[in-house]
């Protein structure tokens, strides 16, 4: 159904305006990361840089430990995503397909705890991690990130497991498959779209998380990207060139990931809107 011409024209004008507004700050960050310091603090600034330099990228990965921050973020995000998918799919399968009690209260409980802000859990966790000697460690972030992302994953995966015909479960059982086997061999492969959705949401949430990472892992060698950038202070001025060089490098992989998985992000949000 083709829209009337005037509607399409207004649509294009509004859309292009906002696409430009969304993308311009990225352009500005990108070109600034290649400008020498004298140009970065020039006023009025040049909208297209006169001189290009790689020096900020050398600073970010040489003098500062940006490579290490990226490595830390990758390790923490991948490990948390793995545990969320494993535990979340098991719990989602149990709630969707097994005769356990209190399913409805469990689902409501999951919704409620996903509402709580990190502020209320951060101090007891800090004290606990401090007592155990786990501050400045990977598990200090992997465990809470797993817990905080499980509720959404369980909800999403439960919905996918419900769509798989129950008869399959019976058939597998008659063939002598154990409950765990039918989950692992039959149900899990049939719910890969749900796994993708849960994975992208968890990964992005871990990749961008700042509050807990700041409090639990402040040591320079254990910082994730957001903490590294936030504590990246120069002595007199903010080293914008270096910060943006590191930022550009850390944005590229996540953008590629989101572009590849965009279908599942959108379907995840749709699911949230329908079932939420």
């Amino acid at each position, binding site marked *: 159904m083709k829209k009337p011409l005037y509607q*399409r024209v207004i*649509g*294009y004008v509004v*859309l292009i305006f*906002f*696409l430009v*507004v*969304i993308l311009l*700050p990225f352009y*500005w*960050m990108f070109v*600034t990361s290649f400008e020498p310091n004298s140009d970065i*603090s020039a*006023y*009025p*600034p040049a*909208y297209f840089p006169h001189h290009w330099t790689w020096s900020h990228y050398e600073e970010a990965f040489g003098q500062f430990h940006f490579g290490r921050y990226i490595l830390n973020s990758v390790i923490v995000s991948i490990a948390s995503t793995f*545990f969320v998918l494993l535990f*979340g799919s*098991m*719990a989602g399968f149990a709630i969707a397909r*097994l*005769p356990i009690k209190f399913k409805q209260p469990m689902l409501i409980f999951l919704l409620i*705890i996903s*509402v*709580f*802000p990190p*502020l*209320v*859990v*951060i*101090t007891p*966790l800090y*004290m*606990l991690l401090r007592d155990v000697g786990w501050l400045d460690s990977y598990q200090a972030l992997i465990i*809470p990130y797993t817990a*905080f992302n*499980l509720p959404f994953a369980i909800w999403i995966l439960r919905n996918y497991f*419900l769509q798989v015909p*129950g008869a399959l479960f019976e058939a597998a059982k008659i063939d002598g498959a*154990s*409950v*765990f086997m039918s989950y692992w061999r039959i149900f899990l492969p049939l719910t890969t779209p749900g796994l993708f959705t849960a994975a992208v949401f968890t990964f992005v949430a871990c*990749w*961008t998380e*700042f509050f807990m990472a700041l409090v639990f892992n402040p040591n320079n060698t254990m910082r994730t990207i*957001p*903490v590294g*950038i*936030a504590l990246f202070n120069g002595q007199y001025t903010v080293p914008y060139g270096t910060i*943006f060089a590191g*930022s550009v490098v850390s944005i590229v992989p996540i*953008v590629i990931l*989101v572009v590849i998985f965009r279908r599942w*992000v*959108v379907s995840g*949000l*749709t699911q949230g*809107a*329908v079932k939420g």
Partner: protein
Amino acid sequence: MSKVMEGRPWLQTGGKRVSVVRHDARAGVGMLAPAGVVILAVTIFPIVYSVWMSFNNIQLTENGFQFTFNGIQNYVDVYSAPLFWHSVWFTVYYSIVTVAIELFLGLLIALAIQNVEKLKSVSVVVMLIPWSLITVISAEMWGYIYNGVYGVLNAILQGLGVIHSPINWTGEPVTAVIALMAADIWKTTPFVVIILLSGLQMIPRDYYEAARIDGANGWQTFWNVTFPQLRGSIAIAGLFRILQAFGIFDLPFVLTQGGPGSTTTSLAMLGEETLFQNLHFGLGAAVAVSTVILILGACLVFLSAFRGMVGEEAQ
């Protein structure tokens, strides 16, 4: 729950099947256990512990944390501090204003995407980029754009003749709040767009066809077809965003450091300051618990205001 039963009617019958059911139930509990343990350890235990902490005076000594029960003293201290009420007020009006603007702009952009032929999938990708962006990076980016000495925003506004001399955006109370809101709206509106766009695509084509046959113009179609059908999605997007906005921390932490003075000190920032910079753990716990109560209250108010809409969507 009932769906499971429907697929397996023999569950209600007795006899030998019962042991199978019991076996499945045991397997189910086993499969729930890992997620349950992690969630209990990392969310429920700390929440209960936070409540306990908020009734204690806590000192950090060489032997670890020393607790002394002091009743509601922490709450009395917190509620008699003007800074706490300032933070409550800032967090509340900041959340309401940003989320309202985001819903409006989000709807506008989603409708624009719905009305164009090309650029649709490109737009969705562009909307997902700010969503996946680390807030701290966004804060640094806007800090550079807003800079009072060499910021590009001043250059653009001066070039257009809107202002005569550069403004120190994050240095003055009013402009600091506006700057913070603009940066937040820039980053989170695209998320609202994606939710609303999904909602738009679920509206049956027939409704538009019927409106067209009845001779409704674009505006009438929007008010009588699109908007009523989209209320559920708007409510969901609003709820997600209100929850996030009430916990705002990253953006002011980097962009304004809560300043100038304490103008942009949100509740989460006040809590973090009390806990980890001033090491007042009891007071900080009282701030945290109060914040949670406020957030739950805000959810209830929002949900009861939108109950009809959410209910309709769930059908």
